[in-house]
């Protein structure tokens, strides 16, 4: 694998994470339990889609001048490089916020390292995105605490959400040849090296939320290397890509 190929894969991983999670979160628009939460979720989705334009824009640039739109709308499931965590269905409001928190915690640590990337473009995107993500993390963390340490019903649902989502956490810290190449070039950290910081941060918030982290370290994998996505990604893409597939090149 050349450095350019690895860099391209790395950018797809960053951009596909924000794209797929942004789309998932946007599914709440008009459906959240209260107006303030609806607005908060829509704004979070908007930030994530904005970050996608930067990551996929750069990925397309080094891949023969494709646009971020080309990459978002004209690839099929096996070409996506997002972790499985972000493509699982929303479930109830609690599960959506738990997924957001588990992702935000990783995202904020990752972006913090990328600000020091040897590639100026990566560092600039990370600096921009990390301001937004600090805010996402504050909100999702507060909500996880509020619901976890809330009523009997909300506590039970948050524990259920954590039990369901925890096996998807490990993939964010998997390392392969792409990561090794990025570490060598000084572009990105080895994801495995972020785990201790993540465990400390997530452990602190989940303890405050009176929730119990499952003991098993089993991890579903196959998203970030594209080997095996869940069936949910295909369903998501049929909705997200429908217009460009039915009316190629349509604009308004």
């Amino acid at each position, binding site marked *: 694998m050349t450095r350019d190929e690895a860099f391209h894969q790395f950018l797809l991983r960053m951009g596909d994470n924000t794209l797929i999670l942004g789309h998932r979160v946007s599914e709440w628009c008009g459906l959240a339990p209260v107006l*303030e*939460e609806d*607005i*908060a979720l829509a*704004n*979070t989705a*908007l*930030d*994530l*889609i*904005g*970050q996608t*334009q*930067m990551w996929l824009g750069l990925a397309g640039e080094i891949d023969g001048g494709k646009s971020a739109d080309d990459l978002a709308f004209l690839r099929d499931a096996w070409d996506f490089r997002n972790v499985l965590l972000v493509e699982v269905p929303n479930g109830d409001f609690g599960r959506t916020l738990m997924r957001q928190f588990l992702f935000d915690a990783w995202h904020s640590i990752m972006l913090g390292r990328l600000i020091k990337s040897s590639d*100026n473009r990566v*560092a*600039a*995107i990370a*600096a*921009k*995105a990390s*301001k*937004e993500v600090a*805010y996402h993390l*504050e*909100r999702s963390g507060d909500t996880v605490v509020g619901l976890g340490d809330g009523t009997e019903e909300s506590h039970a649902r948050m524990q259920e959400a954590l039990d369901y989502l925890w096996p998807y956490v490990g993939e964010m810290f998997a390392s392969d040849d792409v990561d090794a190449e990025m570490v060598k070039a000084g572009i990105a950290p080895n994801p495995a090296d972020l785990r201790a910081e993540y465990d400390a941060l997530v452990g602190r918030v989940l303890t405050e939320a009176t929730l119990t982290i499952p003991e098993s370290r089993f991890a579903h994998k196959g998203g970030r290397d594209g080997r095996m996505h869940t069936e949910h990604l295909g369903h998501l893409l049929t909705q997200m890509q429908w217009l460009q597939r039915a009316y190629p090149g349509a604009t308004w």
Partner: protein
Amino acid sequence: MRVSTDQVWEWLDAVPDPEIPVISVVDLGIVRDVRWDKDTLKVTVTPTYSGCPATSVISMDIETALRDHGIDNLRIETSIAPAWTTDWLSPKGRARLEAYGIAPPHPAGGPERCPRCGSKAVEKVSQFGSTPCKAHWRCTDCLEPFDYFKCI
């Protein structure tokens, strides 16, 4: 026609932000540079939030305004580094925000006072508001809800 960049800044200070029309794009701190490159005027703009839908409208408004002033050779460039910060809001912009009913950003992490009655008894309703750059707060004295321009 090659006018001075000071003149261009003055013109841009009359271009309102599309979401918060009481402040200009210059007040908002998103116009980062104005310079002549031979016969082409280059204006560098930075987005507030990466997904803010107003960004493309702002570029279009800037272009329209400058063309109306007779500048035909014009290029608008977007730059994301250094990342926009609310520190770049002008003092005039901050005062206008408050007069309009939006509490200006405050480093302590919340509004300094209610923009309507001036009371310091305020509480957060939601971390997000009507646009990506704002949060939703409430005054516990006059009981009015208000927007707070988030400090980033």
